[in-house]
């Protein structure tokens, strides 16, 4: 059996999405900017796809939702354009992000820091959540932008975006949110949350890879990073990714339709897996369930190094993830585990399971069995569950 529980990394493309994209490869392959029927064939479907994307986040027609290549591009765009317009010109000197943003925000902020921008990295509390008041505490009259993710990729923790949006609006500070992990999992509405910029990525909600978007509220348009033709209203040059946009539109529509399912059925499966894992002794889950996206669990298995756990799961056909240690090139421990102040011994033990609407009950049952077996085997190897003779000095 193969079970895919790494949906916060990427998702299966919805077969209906794939079907909708298919004609735009070999039949309707015209460049939308050209003057002939091949081009015209793409216009109506593109417009409809854009309308679905707008509707999905509650954008109004006067706002701009510019299609990009991915969320990383969208995040880079916001921060770097804010730098060009506000920091470099001396109007402002400061931005605020959280310490658990996606690397495309953190690394960009660090880059801007090296160029003279001041950056505040807001902490998370022991539940893995950025508290809204910290945003208010750190805003100065020189703050150009606050960028806080809607939901965290590691824990699924949902941040108080509505409160933060209100604080930013009342202080006159621009507000960006990376909503990559929220769309299709919780309701997202840019108007209700006072959002100026919002990042999204199609492949996180069963759309294709290589297409993302940046929402910009009317009046908050940004300097383009890609100069060239006048595509996307001049905000982002580059021939339109026609199949990608069609796919993203369809995926957005399907994700919104499935939102109730996600928050009930997917959540039930997730809870069942979580309950079973918590029955195993010495396991710890980060962030209370009610404050998390319905599909995510970040769990620590004491005494089991994360990559070893992934190895045993993978051998049984189960895909999960660890942000920690040896699974990545840089051998660092999971940044969220450190940020919530988890016990140091648990820093390398976190495993993330992330479900989707395609996850089945049988898959969860199978996963529960395999997790139990893996924990048993790996703890039998583990030095933290080892016999130490009397008088043996256990100090390391």
């Amino acid at each position, binding site marked *: 059996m193969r079970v895919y529980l790494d949906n916060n990394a990427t998702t299966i493309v919805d077969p209906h999405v794939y079907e909708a994209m298919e004609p735009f490869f070999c039949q309707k392959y015209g460049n939308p900017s050209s003057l002939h029927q091949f081009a015209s064939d793409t216009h109506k479907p593109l417009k409809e796809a854009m309308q679905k994307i707008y509707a999905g986040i509650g954008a109004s027609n006067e706002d701009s939702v510019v299609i990009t290549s991915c969320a990383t591009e969208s995040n880079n765009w916001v921060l770097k354009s804010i730098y060009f317009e506000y920091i470099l010109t001396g109007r402002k000197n400061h931005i605020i992000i959280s310490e658990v943003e996606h690397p495309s925000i953190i690394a960009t902020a660090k880059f801007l820091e090296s160029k003279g921008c001041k950056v505040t990295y807001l902490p998370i509390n022991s539940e893995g959540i950025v508290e809204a008041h910290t945003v208010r505490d750190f805003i100065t009259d020189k703050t150009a932008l606050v960028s806080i993710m809607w939901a965290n990729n590691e824990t699924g923790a949902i941040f108080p975006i509505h409160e933060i949006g209100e604080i930013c609006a009342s202080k006159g500070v621009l507000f960006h949110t990376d909503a990559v992990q929220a769309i299709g999992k919780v309701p997202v509405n840019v108007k209700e949350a006072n959002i100026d910029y919002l990042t999204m990525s199609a492949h996180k909600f069963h759309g294709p890879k290589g297409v993302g978007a940046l929402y910009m509220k009317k009046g908050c348009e940004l300097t383009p990073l890609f100069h060239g033709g006048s595509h996307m209203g001049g905000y982002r040059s580059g021939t339109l990714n026609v199949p990608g946009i069609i796919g993203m539109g369809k995926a957005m529509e399907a994700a919104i339709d499935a939102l109730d399912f996600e928050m009930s059925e997917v959540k039930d499966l997730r809870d069942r897996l979580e309950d079973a894992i918590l029955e195993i002794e010495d396991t710890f889950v980060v962030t209370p369930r009610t404050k998390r996206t319905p599909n995510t669990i970040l769990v620590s298995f004491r005494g089991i190094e994360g*990559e070893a756990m992934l*190895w045993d799961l993978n051998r049984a056909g189960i895909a999960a993830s660890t942000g920690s240690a040896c699974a990545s090139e840089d051998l660092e421990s999971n940044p969220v585990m450190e940020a919530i102040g988890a016990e140091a011994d648990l*820093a*390398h033990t976190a495993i993330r399971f992330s479900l989707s609407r395609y996850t089945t009950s049988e898959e969860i049952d199978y996963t529960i069995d395999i997790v139990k077996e893996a924990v048993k085997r790996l703890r039998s190897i*583990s030095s933290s569950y080892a016999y130490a*003779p009397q008088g043996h000095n256990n100090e*390391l």
Partner: protein
Amino acid sequence: MGIDSLIGGTIWDEYSQKVCELMNNPKNMGEITEEEAASMKAKLIVADFGAESCGDAVRLYWAVDPKNDIILDAKFKSFGCGTAIASSDTMAELCKGKSVDEALKITNIDVEKAMRDTPDIPAVPPQKMHCSVMAYDVIKKAASQYKGVDMASFEHEIIVCECARVSLSTLREVIRINDLTTVEQITDYTKAGAFCKSCVRPGGHEAKDIYLVDLLTEYEKEKMTHVADEANAGNVDFSKMTIVQRLKAVEKVIDENIRQMLIMDGGNVEILDIKENGANFDIYIRYLGACSGCASSSTGTLFAMESILKDKLDENIRVIPL
């Protein structure tokens, strides 16, 4: 860069078949109890190395025959990833039947080589070499417990890169002989820094006493001192020096006579430029830290600096703060 570095593969693809098999079914995993050791008439040694908070911890059990120091049995327990478990298993296997002194000669490189499928393809990717070092360290720990001596007494040299086992003296020599200036060059010459990279600079997987970047800085300073010494010793006239020699000579005088005092007061100074202005040498400096706002920086400190430079280098020096 290049094609292989553009799309990252999974590190698991680079594990040898042996590593995978040992991870799935470690042979020497487990414990030796007091009773088991007693039944072999052996002394039980239990040694720990590493810490879970760092991502790796290993416990090694030895049953050693006190008559001839032979390790009759070896077992391990490990908190770690697949390569850590496989390395520990291989290490325990290599210990068996050897005397404690022979076991001490086993290095992490022996452990890694024993896990290869073919002699010239590494068993683990570079960033996993670190796991085999743990296996090596725990042997030393066990031996030190058996012999009742300090672990450091087994190490005759200071090892900077533990993965490739490159010593401080080797590194210093290679850097000097080949006039190396970058970490990449050191890695090319010695393999130090090619694996887990902890020894390259602070902030890696493990904290070190000395890093490759420190050795480069050390050599750089040595060269500078050498140039300045040459200038002084050879009585080369300041006016006949090249611009680089002048800069270094000025740096040296400031380093030796002034900088320490400034730093103690929370400040510092940097040399920006040296220009010939008629018969004069104008040395442009910038104060840093506390010095930049200090009243004395344009009076007492400045005069002191100028008179020392005049005395040591050339009567026609003028110091101009910017």
